[in-house]
């Protein structure tokens, strides 16, 4: 048994418990993206950061991969944590704006705009699908390929894999392809306002004939408030 303090609350957990599990047990919310119950922790998205240690030795760690340690002092919502989380969300929005999951997370964390160059990736390399395929579906049909900028997820040689049973598990767990918003180029877009979270509903001119199929639309919601 390990004793630790999370946000000032003393708690005792089993050996091997991660900080995320300990915090969730106490009912403290920590946003996660690449973490998924039933899959091995991966630590790719960094969204679950918490602050551990004290004073000048305090540092940010990903709670989904960090095991509980005796006497550890954890803060799940310190100013530093919140700042880091917002930054991560902004960056995620910058690369993959059409993901409803990311948009929802962003709006829940009061990210109102993102300041980076907008890209339209359809993958955030969280590796959920890779782990799903390997660990739950026992197929290992897809995996990471290349590195750096070229890193991508897919089948070897980009051909249909022989071991894939088209179970759809990968798509089911993907935060970027479940509930996908369309791009925001006017021809293809439905609304697109959510991409930059600047409220399109106000600038009615440009988006007048467009309809939004997302309920509720993150961007619109922000305006309403």
């Amino acid at each position, binding site marked *: 048994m390990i004793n630790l303090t999370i946000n000032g609350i003393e708690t005792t957990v089993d050996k091997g418990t991660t900080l995320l599990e300990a915090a969730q047990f106490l009912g403290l919310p920590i946003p996660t993206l690449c973490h998924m119950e039933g899959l091995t922790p991966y630590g790719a998205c960094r969204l679950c950061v918490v602050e551990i240690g004290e004073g000048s030795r305090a540092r940010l760690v990903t709670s989904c991969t960090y095991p509980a340690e005796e006497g550890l002092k954890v803060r799940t919502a310190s100013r530093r944590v919140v700042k880091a989380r917002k930054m991560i969300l902004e960056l995620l929005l910058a690369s993959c704006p059409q993901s409803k999951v990311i948009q929802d997370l962003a709006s829940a964390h009061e990210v109102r705009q993102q300041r980076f160059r907008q890209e339209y990736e359809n993958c955030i390399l969280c590796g959920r699908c890779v782990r799903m395929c390997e660990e739950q579906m026992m197929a290992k049909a897809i995996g990471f390929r290349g590195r750096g900028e070229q890193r991508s997820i897919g089948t*070897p040689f980009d051909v249909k894999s022989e071991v894939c049973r088209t179970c759809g598990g990968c798509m089911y767990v993907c935060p970027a392809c479940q509930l996908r918003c369309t791009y925001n180029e006017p021809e293809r877009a439905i609304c697109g306002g959510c991409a930059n979270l600047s409220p399109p509903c106000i600038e009615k001119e440009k988006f007048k004939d467009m309809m939004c199929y997302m309920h509720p639309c993150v961007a619109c919601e922000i305006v309403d408030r």
Partner: protein
Amino acid sequence: MKLQHVENIVDKHGSERGSLIAILSDIQSTYSYLPEEALRTVAQKTGKSLVDVYGVATFYRSFSLKPRGKHLCSVCVGTACHVRGSERVAHEFEQQLQVKPGNTTSDRQFTLEHVNCLGACALGPIVVVDGHYFSNVKTTEVKRIVGQAREGLDTVEVKTDQRVFPLDVSCPRCNHGLMDPENLVDGYPPIRVTISFERKHGWLLLSCLYGSFNSRSEHAIPLEATVHVFCPHCHAELSSATPCASCGATMVPMIVRQGGVLQVCSRHGCREHVLDLDGVNL
């Protein structure tokens, strides 16, 4: 037959997790790229999934999934080289070879590649062609480098190369001079010995320039064949006790007039030679 070779490589390294890179680099050095079937065979033989093998193969820059050309040109575009203008050099290579980086010319001669640092930043811009380093490369030199690579960078330029100098040798048994003043190889009188291999018997003229491997012989010697070398005067076989360090064939000793011993490998195509000039080892 091709896959048999891949299987042998796998058998050699075993199928533990750590041996994958060794296997892949062996395959790469055999075929100069990683063919799809080879990767599939590796996955099958080692019991790994194809994604894992493919992931490793695409992760490392030294592995290529596309066939490479005969000559590999790597232009450094790392920070230090970039600052020294490697971008223009890289562009010039693209112009000269008419390919985009990462691709191979249509005649399969050159593969152009960008690398991110070769660890010789102070000498940048650096270009490496077939393992030969070129430092402080200017755009005007690119054409010459490409031309040199076409001709083969491994042939020694006897007229300009400083490392090449003529030797005067004699037989270690009878001490009779072995130089042949009646012939010329590389513009110098060559070393003349008698050789025998595969029931053939004849003369062999070796360039006396240390560093040059040019030779002439009565019978064409097949590559990789070893020959017996004899002194044309006392007919003693010239063979030394220590075998060649790189291929294991017998070394042929000769006395250098200036003082010292020259040893050359008796295998045709092996480039091992040792010059021991009274203590100075070259």
